[in-house]
């Protein structure tokens, strides 16, 4: 069976249509090569293999606080956010173009909580559930990442959740790839007209 297929393949390779196609491709390539040879020379350089470790892990626990205006009143949010960071390099020598270094970030909001009200009867507490923000970002010295987190009354279920804005400014050592410092603030999720519109036409 394999022999038959090989024979078929050989027949195909030497068929008139294949030969015509091959000649055509070679002619096109030759023409293109003549016109653009200087351009080609600029494109084949690949980055040398890096001596840096491919993976660098780091982690920070960053204090966070802020207030959120909620229908239940002003919520004071405080606590900490655990930021796990993995710097990754593309060390492959097989690919045509190495990818840029990136950081994989995991922001764990589970240690954030909020309160509203001040009396025994009005006091409510809020939690964020199991929410993490998982982000892939280019490695740079400083990156401001605007993420959001749900929060909800701890006595209710997740369907009652609303959104708060979390602004994280993270600083990296671009040489070692480590997360070195950062700050996190909490605020209102401002909804713009670009985010929630109004139906103006009926199709």
């Amino acid at each position: 069976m394999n022999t038959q297929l090989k024979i078929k393949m050989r027949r195909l390779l030497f068929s008139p249509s294949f030969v015509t196609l091959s000649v055509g491709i070679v002619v096109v390539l030759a023409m293109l090569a003549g016109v653009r040879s200087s351009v080609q020379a600029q494109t084949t350089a690949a980055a040398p293999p890096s001596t840096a470790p491919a993976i660098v892990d780091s982690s920070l626990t960053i204090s966070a606080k802020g207030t959120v205006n909620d229908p239940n009143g002003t919520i004071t949010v405080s606590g900490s956010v655990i930021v796990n960071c993995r710097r990754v390099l593309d060390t492959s020598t097989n690919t045509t173009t190495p990818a840029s270094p990136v950081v994989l970030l995991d922001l764990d909001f589970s240690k954030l909580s909020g309160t509203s009200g001040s009396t025994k009867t009005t006091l409510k507490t809020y939690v964020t559930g199991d929410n993490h923000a998982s982000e892939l970002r280019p490695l740079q010295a400083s990156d401001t990442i605007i993420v959001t987190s749900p929060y909800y009354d701890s006595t209710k279920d997740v369907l009652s959740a609303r959104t708060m804005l979390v602004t994280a400014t993270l600083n990296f050592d671009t040489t070692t790839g480590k997360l070195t410092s950062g700050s996190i603030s909490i605020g209102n999720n401002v909804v713009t007209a670009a985010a929630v519109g109004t139906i103006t036409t009926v199709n």
Partner: protein
Amino acid sequence: MPDKNFFLSPKASKARLREAEQARKNRQEIIKARSQGQISRRDLIKMGIFTSAGLMLPISGLSPFARSAYADSNIPTGLPPSPLFTATAFSQPMPRFDVFPRNPVSVLNPAPTAQANTTQQPVDPALGGGMGPIEGRPPGPIWAHQQFTQLPPVIAIQASMEGAKINNVYNPGVPSNQNSGINAANPFHPTFHPNLPDQTALKLWTYNGTIPPKLMQVRYGEPVLFRLSNKLPVQQNQNGGFGIHTISTHEHNGHHGAENDGFTGAYFFPNQFYDYHYPIVLAGRNSINTDATDINASSPTDAGGLTKVPGDWHETMSTHWFHDHMFSFTSQNVYKGMAGMFNIYSGKDRGAEDIIDGVNLRLPSGRASVSGKSWGNLDYDVNLMLADKAWDGNGQLAMDIFEFDGFLGDRMTVNLAYKPYMEVERRKYRFRILNGAVSRFFKIALSDSSPMIQIANDGNLLPHPVVLTKLDEQGIAERYDIVIDFSRYSINQKVWMVNLAEHQDGKRVDKDLSVSEALSGNSDDPCVGKFLEFRIVRDPAQPDISQVPDPLIPNPDLSAIPVARERTFEFNDGANQTTHDPITSFFGPWGIKTNDQGDTLAADFGRISAAPRFGTREIWTLKNGGGGWDHPIHIHFEECQTLARNGSASAVPAWEKGRKDVWRLRPDGEVKITLQFRDFGGMFMEHCHNTVHEDNAMLLRWEIDDLGTPFLQPLPTPIPKPQGVTFMPPDDILPSAF
């Protein structure tokens, strides 16, 4: 390192766009010849178009990544943008899926048989002539439907694979007011937008040749016989320039015998059919709850009750999809339209929110008391298939199969409609979101960052719902079921689904954007930003009584099942080709190293890389061999539990703590999973679901081949031909396979 981007801006100079279009045409000639079998990859290497690693050289006039003659040194050559003609975003309604008719199995003629039906018929001369079997399933006992007598098919679903045509029998399964006003009685044209040209019969190949994409609705305890007839052109060159007319459908991720799994080497030819037997059983049916006494392991009856079924109810599945799996052509065929979705209904997830029986989770779906359907209501249970597409200057679907990093389109489609809108009521909806792209990852948020509740991951309801304001990245073939509560909006408001995952190429996401970044319009990636508009049009006619309970479906307890062994699979580039069978092997830049031994190997479906014992449990570690790419790895047949990411159990996020069948390894990442091997046997696959990687050649075969006996018997490899399937022994068995 050179910056690059896949698609040129529409604002690029006319000369630049002309140059890119010419390069695309030049490549199309080669793609056409390659897809039509006139030329092999080895020939291309000899011609100097490919490197020996199978990568396309950056030759100007061919490669999209070669520098342009019209650009300065920092601007790469890109592909020309797909023309929109007069189509605009959010100007067409989103069609709901087209529900396959369900019929009694008695309508099938010929009747289905346990072993392949080898009744002979004349074979078209274009396929070699002579005589051949009417069914393309490999013949004989090994490929006979397992447990066919115990689980005889009850429901028949018939379909054909054919070229694009107008749909005159569209069945959305919901009334027009739940389908954004679409009148299903009108002819439905094969186009991505009414203002774009219809796709020709050679460019778009779909189930039944029509769009919207198809939906199968099935329930536990009711075996289905899916008969797929291949009505594609017999001439291989009648493919519109890409795709192949030999097909194999994978029900992703069915717990079925391997003969029904859409094995990549069990493909069939035009004028043949293939009977896929989907028993729709709970995993563990032969060892857990075998006498079907647990009411949680159950299926909805037409009368509104429950039928108990054997098996472990913790293995209940919900959202599958089905797609082509033709060896080394999956990306082309799926991109060409060979994909649909598959909803499984159970006592727990029955698709009727008003049936209160103590078992039904009452997830958003619709009321049985209104529709008269005791299960499978779709009013508020919506399938979404996301896919990026590209088309040529004539508006016809276009693909570049030489992008071995992965192919990206520049136009977002939902259910094969370009950036549609959907009318919704002020209540909860369930969305079953499938990443049906070739290589693109998505990351979804609502434009106002409102919370979404994730209830399922891949085919499985989570142990607990998870509230998120943006979903995790969603790799190709992953399914995320979410609930959105639109009651927070006012009538006449609109809000959008937004894609935050920015790509520069098909290797992986380049950057996860914030919602504001994605909405700014500053991204060079044309598929970033809004892609689906929700228009809040009315209050529901009845109060929303649907629920999102906690817990949903707890994980199966595997602690008492010993781990028989551990295996490691590393997904890498720089593969070696150690076998050269022209039918079963394929060479590409990608490959898999098994158990840290030997080479990273290019795909060969004649090679057995792993052969776990029937009835055992194993732990598998899936490693990404590099930081420059991501791989969504799919394991067929059994659902798995994720034990750790990068060696840490705590690094498994809440939305991955259920069962899964696809894992994004993340750049340089590692995932440890555990899975069982039970109920059925045969040859299955494991592969990257970036289908360009899969096709080039990041795929392996594993098999369960002892069927509970002490004898290990490697299964023969099928070699399909129109004149009949033959078999040959495996051409390679890795030493660590057994």
